[in-house]
């Protein structure tokens, strides 16, 4: 310390002489700081600072960034453009869709153009198989779907199963059996898997070759009676195939010399998928008789099939409990899909379902299984969509859960959560809940659950609720922001908007609303026109308003 003081005083003397003298005393770090300081207190502080900097410099750990981090950061700076259509459409006034039907038409035509190109690529793969890109991009190469291994052997059968050729595999299997060579249990099981998944019909590739109808319509099975089975089939299986008595899967199952648990499970799942629940139940009793254990997916399928096995609510719930007990006995761990299946069945159990569903949720929490959006959707359905609406605050609790995190898709029914929740908010006429729901949808990845149709339904309901409950300027602000980028208003929405304008006596906006109606293509809808005209004829409008926008206005002040 004494040395430094000495240095300090000598510096002070030297500073009187010249500022350009470099100091020799003290550490090198002092020089820069001392050049411009003239008081000794600052000098002492700088001396202490340079002492500190002589310690170890700790290098921070190198951060590893995700490959997409830069793109995600850039994307977070760009907001949604409220005047543009969905990004899959071209940004041109002639090519932008006008309303919902138009947007569906255009997106479907683009998709059919893509499948036309894929057809060409499949037909002439020799023009597309040169690998000009480094590294090779496999998804841009033509698919090679012809089996390589010829001849009647088990390896050939395995290859055809791998390439998903249903007919080819079944033919080859029959050939193998006729030739007398045994087929191993594993291969037979994988053949059964293929058959039960595609339902003995054709797989997607083979179906494409024979498809003549629309991409839209599922193939109707004409020889069917009107029965609950038809709805069951529509709800579970979109390809229209129905499980037949003499289908290939059953035939192969019967002639199998030995069967293990996997065979039974596959058959049960296939039967449930393709509309034969009673058979699935019989198969399950067979499985129990053989003392095999079923796996969790089989139990999920069986629980989903319960509403079609029994009619009375109490019986349904008893059967579900039965299955769950069997699960416990066979030491099969339930997963989130199990509980979703239970809740889906409880949807059709009326009052019994309502009483029991909360205990199901508690069971789920006890097992530490995180609920997916489908769980909440089923709960909302049970409590809010039944005939006798009893007041319940469960929606607030559900929203609290949903707001906390961003969900990943785990169940095909997840996608229905947001429209159902918005419908429940509309029924309850609660705008605050709707705002909360909106916020939770924008959080993280939750917006990915809404595809084009559901997006439209969701926002239409939100807009109707807004028109009913909110002030007119808030309504107009949302209207400007939401159309046409998020949804295309339907006739119903324009009706609601007109009524809201009516209630707020804000009729000056009507010319621009009429422009929008014309653009949406609703200018010939009778009831909308009548509503508009009655609003316009209610009052005298000032002079500026009748320029240009109203060919039909009767009250033109001259």
């Amino acid at each position: 310390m004494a040395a430094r003081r000495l240095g300090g005083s000598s510096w002070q003397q030297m500073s009187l002489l010249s500022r350009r003298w470099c100091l020799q005393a003290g550490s090198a770090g002092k020089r820069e700081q001392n050049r411009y300081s003239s008081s000794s207190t600052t000098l002492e502080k700088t001396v202490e600072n340079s002492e500190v900097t002589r310690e170890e410099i700790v290098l921070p750990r190198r951060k590893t960034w995700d490959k997409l981090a830069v793109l995600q950061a850039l994307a977070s700076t760009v907001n949604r453009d409220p005047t543009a259509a969905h990004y899959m459409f071209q940004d041109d006034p002639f090519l932008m869709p006008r309303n919902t039907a138009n947007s569906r038409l255009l997106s479907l035509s683009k998709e059919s153009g893509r499948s036309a190109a894929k057809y060409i690529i499949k037909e002439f793969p020799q023009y597309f198989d040169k690998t000009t890109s480094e590294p090779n991009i496999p998804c841009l190469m033509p698919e090679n779907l012809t089996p390589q291994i010829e001849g009647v052997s088990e390896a050939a059968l395995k290859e055809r199963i791998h390439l998903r050729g249903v007919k080819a595999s079944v033919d080859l299997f029959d050939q193998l059996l006729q030739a007398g060579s045994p087929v191993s249990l594993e291969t037979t099981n994988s053949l059964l898997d293929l058959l039960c998944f595609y339902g003995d019909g054709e797989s997607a590739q083979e179906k494409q070759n024979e498809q003549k109808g629309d991409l839209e319509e599922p193939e109707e099975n004409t020889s069917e009676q009107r029965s609950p089975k038809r709805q069951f089939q529509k709800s579970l299986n979109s390809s229209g195939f129905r499980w037949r008595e003499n289908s290939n899967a059953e035939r192969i199952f019967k002639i199998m010399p030995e069967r293990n648990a996997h065979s039974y499970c596959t058959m049960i799942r296939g039967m449930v998928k393709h509309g034969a629940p009673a058979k699935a139940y019989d198969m399950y009793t067979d499985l129990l008789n053989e003392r095999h254990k079923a796996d969790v997916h089989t139990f999920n399928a069986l629980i989903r099939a319960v509403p079609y096995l029994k009619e009375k609510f109490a019986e349904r719930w008893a059967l579900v409990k039965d299955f769950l007990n069997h699960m416990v006995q066979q030491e099969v761990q339930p997963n989130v899909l199990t509980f979703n299946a239970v809740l889906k069945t409880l949807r059709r159990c009326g009052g019994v379902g309502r009483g029991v569903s909360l205990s199901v949720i508690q069971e789920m929490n006890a097992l530490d299984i995180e609920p997916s959006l489908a769980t909440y959707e089923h709960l909302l359905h049970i409590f809010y969509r039944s005939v006798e609406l009893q007041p319940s605050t469960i929606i607030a609790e559900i929203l609290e859960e949903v707001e906390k995190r961003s969900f990943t898709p785990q169940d095909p029914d997840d996608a229905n959560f947001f429209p159902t929740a918005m419908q429940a908010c509309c029924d309850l006429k609660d705008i605050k809940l709707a705002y909360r729901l909106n916020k939770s949808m924008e959080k993280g990845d939750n917006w990915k659950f809404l595809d084009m149709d559901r997006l439209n339904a969701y926002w239409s309901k939100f807009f109707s609720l807004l028109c009913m409950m909110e002030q007119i300027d808030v309504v107009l602000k949302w209207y400007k922001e939401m159309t046409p980028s998020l949804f295309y208003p339907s006739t119903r929405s324009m009706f609601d908007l007109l009524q809201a304008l009516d209630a707020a006596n804000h009729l000056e906006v009507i010319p621009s609303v009429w422009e929008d109606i014309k653009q949406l293509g609703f200018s010939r809808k009778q009831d909308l026109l009548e509503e508009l005209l009655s609003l316009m004829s209610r009052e005298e409008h000032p002079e500026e308003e009748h320029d240009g926008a109203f060919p039909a206005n009767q009250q033109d002040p001259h």
Partner: protein
Amino acid sequence: MAAPVAARALRVVSWSRSCAPPALGAHRDLHTTPVCFKTRAARVRVGKGDKPVTYEQAHAPHYIAHRKGWLSLHTGNLDGEAGAAERTVEDVFLRKFLYGTFPGCLANEVVLKRRANLLVICLVVLQNLAPSKLYFLIGYSETLLSHFYKCPVRLEVQTVPTKVIYKYL
């Protein structure tokens, strides 16, 4: 202007017979094309005043980078970069392909932009076809060209009601 260039015939100029013809009658010939003067390249000749001409066609090549831009943008022609010839061949194929796929609809030359791997094709299209048909063709072209060139291809289409005429020559 989007019409394909007519093939020019090759002309064969033989060396005269007097200087040492090979024994078996085989010839070594010099092949030339007919003369193409650079003063006539890419120029629409002035006529009676009834020929409608777009901005692109009306300007001669010496106006590129002054009044015109480029129709094909890639880095193959920079110093040290490879692949200029391949890009040119791809461009020719793409222009022919698009001329045939959008029959009678192209209002102007196609602009091709290459950014890293991505190929952006900018078209100006007349409003002859219904929007759904145009989207069909757009989806078809994008997928087919992506699979053909093994790189992502994006079409950006702008529509005009009629061809935009700059002047009459």
